[in-house]
Every structure is written in C-alpha cells, then in structure tokens.
C-alpha cells in the first residue's frame, strides 16, 4: 500500500526547519565573503600598524578625490539598480531597461576608472608591503565588480529581450543583492584604505 502511495505522490523532501535553504545559502555566501575580505583587511591593518612609517608610505599618495568620485558613481549605481527592480515590480519595462543599463554603465565606469588609477598611481604590487596590500584589497573588490557586471550584463540583455514580469523578476533581484553587497564592501575599503 505504501508503495502505491509513493508512486502517486513522492514523499515530502526531508529538510531541517531551522533555516530556509535559500537563506542558508545566502548566509554561507556572506560568511565566505566576510572571511575572504576579513583576511585581506587583517593583512592591511597589520601592515599599517606594524610599519613605522606614515600611511601611505612616502613619497606615494593615494588619489582620494578620484576614488571619492568613483565611490559616488558606485553608490549611484545602487540607486539605479533599486529603481530598475522597483520599475519591473510595477510592470514598467522601460524603467527596468533604463535602470539596468545605467547600473551597468556606472559599474563599468567605476571599473575603468580603477584601471586608470592603477596605471597612474606610481607604485606596483611588488614595490613594498603597502603596495601589495593596496592592490590586493582594491583588486579583490574590482574582481567582485567584474563578476557583478557580468551578472548585470545577463540581466540587461534579458530585459531587452522581453524577459521578466511583475511577478517573475528573480533574475534581477539576485544580481541586485550581489551589486549592493559589492557596494557595501567598497564603502568599507574606501573608508579604511583611502580616508582613515
């Protein structure tokens, strides 16, 4: 009898009720990212505290203003990302397309500006410990921006091909969460490396 029941209805999947699987996945992702960035920040603070020199090491100077403008660009891209998702939730396809396109362009501007900054900064990763830490931290973040741009590119192309509706917009929501996370990490990197 039990076999007949199973044939008609597959048994209910057994899973712990403590944490929802998707929430657990996001928790694990955040935890792994915190550990990754945490290890680089540990090195940064160790080098900065243990080095008996001013920060950054003379004669080098960090382009605080350019990086500040880049920060504004990246934070603005979060607003356009949020706008894109709110637009599709209201059925506004033009708003979705414009929001995603702007987000992608702003993100690309950030990345290109950072590459330009690298080429003109005057030191290299092998120059000294300060240079290594600087390129590692900002480069790690830049890699995250690149991944975010790839996700945004897919979402933007799909938006222009007519995908996503008021009810089905998971493909915008997930890149949005990732993009905001990348922005949060940049705020931390910019404040600690460039400002303080």
């Amino acid at each position, binding site marked *: 009898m039990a076999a007949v029941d199973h044939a008609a209805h597959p048994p209910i999947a057994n899973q712990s009720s403590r944490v929802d699987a998707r929430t657990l996945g996001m928790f694990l992702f955040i935890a792994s990212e915190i550990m990754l960035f945490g290890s680089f920040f540990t090195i940064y603070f160790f080098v900065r505290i243990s080095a008996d020199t001013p920060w950054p090491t003379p004669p080098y100077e960090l382009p605080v203003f350019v990086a500040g403008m880049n920060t504004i660009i990246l934070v603005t891209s979060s607003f356009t990302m949020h706008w894109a998702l709110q637009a599709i939730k209201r059925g506004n396809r033009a708003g979705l397309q414009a929001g995603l396109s702007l987000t992608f362009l702003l993100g690309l501007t950030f990345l290109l500006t950072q590459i330009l900054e690298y080429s003109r900064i005057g030191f290299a990763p092998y120059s000294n410990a300060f240079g290594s830490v600087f390129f590692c931290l900002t480069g790690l973040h830049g890699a995250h921006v690149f991944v975010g741009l790839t996700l945004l590119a897919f979402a933007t192309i799909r938006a222009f091909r007519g995908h996503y509706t008021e009810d089905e917009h998971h493909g915008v*929501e997930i890149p949005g969460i990732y993009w905001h996370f990348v922005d949060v990490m940049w705020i931390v990197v*910019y*404040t600690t490396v460039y400002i303080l």
Partner: protein
Amino acid sequence: MANPLRSEGEAFRFLLGTVVYFAAIAIAGVINAWAGLVVFIVLTIAVGWWWWRSRQPAPPVTASPVKSGPQGERRILVVANETVGGEELLQRIEQLASQGNTRVLVVTPALNSPLRHLASDEDRARAQAQERLDHSLAELERHGVQASGEVGDGDPLQAIEDALRTFGADEIVISTHPEGQSNWLERGVVTSARERYAVPIHHVVVD
C-alpha cells in the same frame, strides 16, 4: 540573526545604512583621530542596541501540515524532557489517549549546555534524552498507551516546530517542572508556544 541581504530592498537599505555609518566615522576621523574613534564606538554600540531591540519573534505557525493518517485520527504531540516520566504527565496522556482513535508522539528535546551546543557536542545530551524517552515510552505502554517517540532539538520551541512538520498534531502537551523550578517556564516556552502554534496547548506540571 536577520539576514540583511535576503532581498534586494533589504540589501539596498543595508547599503544606505553602511554609507551613513562610514561617512560619519570618516568625517569625524578626518577632523580628529580620537573623534573618529569615539564616533566609531558610539555608532557601533547604537547599531548593536538597535539590532537587539528590533529583533522580531518568529512569526506564528498558523497551520499544521496536512495529516497523512487515517480520517478521524487524533494526534497528540507531547514535549517533555526531565519530566517525561512524571506520573502527572503519564496520567494526562493516558486520559487524552483514551478518547477514541489517538496517536501520540513524545518528543524529548536534547537539552545541552550553551558551550557544548556551540561546540556541536550533542551526543551525550541526545543519549540522555533518548534514555528518558525510552523509559517514558515503556511506562506509557505499561499503561496501555501506544506511543512513538523521538529526540528533538535542544530548543523546545524548535523541537515542536520540527515535529509539527512531520506530525500534524491536533493538540500539544508541554510538561514542565513547577513555577520557580522550571527553566522552560522562566523562558516563557509555554506562552510562546501558545502564541506561535494554532493548536490547543495543554500545560502539565510535574513536581
């Protein structure tokens, strides 16, 4: 802990909070290094306090899963640990089970110390809970009550929720020590269970 990246909207608000937090620290730090440190400490404490205050209790479970048993079967979920073999509890279960076609599931939460819980050292707690459960099931059988049992999560509310997902209970019996001796009563387990679960909950005190 609430996950700030659960949805795009929450992630966006988290970003705005991060911008404000770090902007305040950076501005104070540029003016004076010690001012930056003070702002950092004050804001961190404020954020921690706000998070602590804004924690919401788990939403009520308004419905139990659909029962897969035969029509007319009444299901009783019993949650007890140290009092699982108590005379008052056995009498109550016997009384409830005597009313027609009844199925009883006894769950004993594997109570553990916080340190052992953090270290995932639960084997001893589960073994002790299993021992009490076996004794209780044997006592119920001696009284003519057919019951099954399982060891549950150390948190009694979580143990109830876990059990409800596989055992669609019509009633829940929670057994505790008397007021003043019961850790579960001090933590408001019975009250919280009544708020969270949309089934009748009986509280049995075992002295």
